[in-house]
């Protein structure tokens, strides 16, 4: 047997060390190359639009690439930061995967400030909508000073409407929290001793003569037969809007007896396949999560109301005018939010003329120009506190 020399041992150790270093070198090389590639992928995407199949569902204009105006360096940096944050490569694709990771794997809301995941396939808006969660938690009770300010403002509007020969009503569209508390996440209370709507109603009846139309009872009574709100949306569905219309018209009828009695049977209700609503659209899950049911309404009798004018406004819901051939009926001016949009199918059937306006401000010139008999301010429950700035 050949005698081993120290040189053999040393070269063997060196070889063995080299062998041991191989895997480490392979790993770090792989990491280096991969990391370099990962860092450049977003630049490649912005250049080659590789992820164009993933569209943003944000419903807002993303920040554009700013132009540099010397010497406004700070402004440019701020604008560029915003631009890059909202437009970097693969952003929409990354959010798309993130949304599924959070919803499917972790069973939590991808955007908890925007959307709450309720029970039985229901979704609710989160605190980003005027602190709605806190309101329904009892953490944001409307302050008496706010109520006083609202009452003062509405009373002033009421006096101005009276001077124009129009009667003013406030119509509150309940939040889905109020009508479907049973599907709220388990950590939320199902019923509060007193909601902001209750406080508003009580204050208005004590301090003003403005009628507040409350359709909560009508909706709660009707929900045993039909689903009234979209499960994946902030709004009521067509049937919910019909029930609300019926309750509103019948309340108005107390002051305007010429109005016809509104009945559910005035419309044929046909169930249809639901679609994904605004809440799940924000999560980019609207193709996967849809309402279990929706409804299509058609008048039981030949349609009376004719749409005579539609004013399209950029980024807003349209203003619409409807007329029917019944000169004895009163004329309605409704200034409302997105909840009144679903009432477009049913509400105009009961008035000589209906002008449905989606606005966040009350323009008295509209009343002066339109000469309505009835002015309805429609507002969703969560925004009652903003009535003072209407």
């Amino acid at each position, binding site marked *: 047997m050949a005698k081993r020399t120290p040189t053999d041992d040393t070269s063997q150790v060196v070889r063995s060390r080299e*062998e*041991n270093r*191989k*895997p*480490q*070198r*392979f*790993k*770090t090389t*792989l*990491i*280096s190359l991969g*990391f*370099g590639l*990962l*860092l*450049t992928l*977003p*630049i490649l995407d912005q250049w080659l639009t590789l992820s164009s199949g993933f569209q*943003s569902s*944000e*419903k*807002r204009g993303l920040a554009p690439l700013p132009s540099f105006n010397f010497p406004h360096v*700070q402004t440019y*940096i701020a604008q560029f930061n915003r631009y*890059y*944050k*909202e437009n*970097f490569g*693969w*952003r929409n694709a*990354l*959010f798309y*995967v*993130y*949304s599924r*990771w*959070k919803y499917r794997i*972790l*069973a*939590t809301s991808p*955007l908890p400030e925007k959307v709450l995941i309720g029970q039985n396939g229901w979704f609710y808006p989160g605190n980003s*909508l005027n602190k709605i969660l806190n309101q329904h*938690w*009892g*953490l944001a009770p409307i302050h008496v000073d706010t109520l006083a300010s609202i009452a003062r403002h509405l009373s002033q509007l009421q006096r101005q409407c009276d001077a124009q020969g129009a009667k003013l009503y406030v119509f509150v569209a309940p939040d889905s929290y109020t009508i479907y508390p049973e599907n709220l996440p*388990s*950590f939320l*209370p199902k019923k*509060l001793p007193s909601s902001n709507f209750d406080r508003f109603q009580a204050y208005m009846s004590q301090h003003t003569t403005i009628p507040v139309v409350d359709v909560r009872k009508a909706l709660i009574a009707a929900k045993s037969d039909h689903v009234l709100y979209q499960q994946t949306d*902030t709004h009521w569905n067509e049937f919910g809007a019909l029930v609300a219309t019926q309750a509103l018209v019948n309340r108005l009828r107390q002051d305007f007896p010429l109005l016809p009695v509104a009945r559910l049977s005035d419309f044929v209700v046909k169930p249809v396949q639901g679609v994904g609503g*605004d*809440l799940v*659209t*924000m999560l980019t899950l609207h193709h996967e999560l849809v309402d279990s049911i929706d409804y299509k309404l058609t008048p039981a009798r030949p349609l009376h109301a004719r749409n005579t004018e539609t004013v399209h406004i950029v*980024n*807003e*819901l349209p203003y619409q005018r409807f007329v029917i051939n019944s000169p004895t009926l009163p004329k309605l001016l409704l200034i409302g939010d*997105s909840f009144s949009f679903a009432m477009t199918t049913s509400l105009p059937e009961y008035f000589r003329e209906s002008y449905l306006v989606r606005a*966040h401000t009350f323009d008295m010139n509209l009343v002066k120009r339109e000469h309505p008999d009835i002015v309805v301010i429609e507002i969703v429950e969560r925004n009652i506190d903003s009535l003072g700035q209407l």
Partner: protein
Amino acid sequence: MLFSSAIFLFLFLPFFLLIYYLLPKRFHNAFLFAASLCFYAWGEGPVVLVLLLSALINYIAGRLIEQGRRRAGLWLSLAGSLSLLFYYKYANFFVDSVLGVAKAFTLPVPAGLALTHIALPIGISFYTFQGISYTLDIYWGRIKANRSFLDYGTYVAMFPHQIAGPIVRYADIAPELADRTTTIEKFGIGAERFILGLAKKVLLANTFASLADTIFNAPPDTYPTATAWLGIVGYSLQIYFDFSGYSDMAIGLGKMVGFDFKENFNYPYVARSIQDFWRRWHISLSSWFRDYVYIPLGGNRASKMRTYRNLLIVFFVTGLWHGASWNFIIWGLYHGLFLLIERAGLGKRLERLWPPVAHAYTILAVLVGWVFFRTETLPEAIHFLQKMLGLGGQPTAMMAYPPSYFLNAELIVSLLIGFVLATPVYPYFQRGWERLVARLVSIHILLNSIYVVGLFGLFVLAVMYLAADTYNPFIYFRF
């Protein structure tokens, strides 16, 4: 610009690395200096001049000391650096405190004495301390002054450690500043460390931050005692993963450009005493205070009382270093007091105790300390501590935040991972994995590929969370 932002990850970093690696070695420092100034100015604007001024003061001071004008150089460094720090970080606090005392004793206060708010330049505490340690080390003859402002400026402004540390001492990186090697292996190690740090920050620290912020911002009557404990545990994990994640990213970026920064954290939550905790928490800061404040004050070389005094002074300034508020000072003194008690005899007893008891004591002391650190004012801290103790009454309003509100699948998993990673399990796993790879060397390509895919999966997951943070959908325009 934060490391955990898209603009840093996908714009600044790739272009920086590309140019850095394309440039000849002799231009590396100049490019690193210029890129670091751009990095700083992008977020801070003209305040970059404060950083440059601080660097210039200490550079000149170092040269003066070396040229024999030792006292002048030292005074220039201390007065220059500390006056900048005092003005930008403590002037508002000082004036407000004086006004508060005057108000409390109904003393006459001249009109117009109140100071307008002075914006704090990010990282000023770090680069001030780096500058002071540089001149003190020259003064004590430990190092030679750098003759090139470009090289010295690169050390001070270097973006990897610029805004959140660690406090890198000149002495530690002087050789690399003059001559450093960058290899693909070192780059890979740096990238791995960076990804782990990013994941710690984005996936863990941010999740715990959301928990802690909700609880600390909620009115005390809306949550029970258990939620208060959940809040402080969440905050403790948040601050650890946030800070150590940032240090990991800094160390990783340093490696990518050829520097070896020292470790800044060594699993502080497994400490068995407060003294042990400070050997493991923000090591670059605690060792800085040890070497440049505690030892010059006399350390433990004189009487017991002098040692106690020195400890309290060190922890007073440690608290103040973290922020200009009485809560930080109380937090510092609170830790100093524990150290004092441990030095007085408790430390020896802790060593003899069953380790879990010593751990429990340390964790409890640290958790209570974080309450002062997290809250804005002393009354807030006291309310929160009362809540933790079950004092101050049960929730009176609607009980909005029971623990069940927070404990969803994501938080439970994050807490479990957080608890595990706050202990030295990961290095243990890594060593085991490396042993396995060494043993199964024939399939090392497969095993290493699995590891790398997992690492990149973590990176993509972290970036997904960053993308979600920028996603702000509206239901309708203006509705």
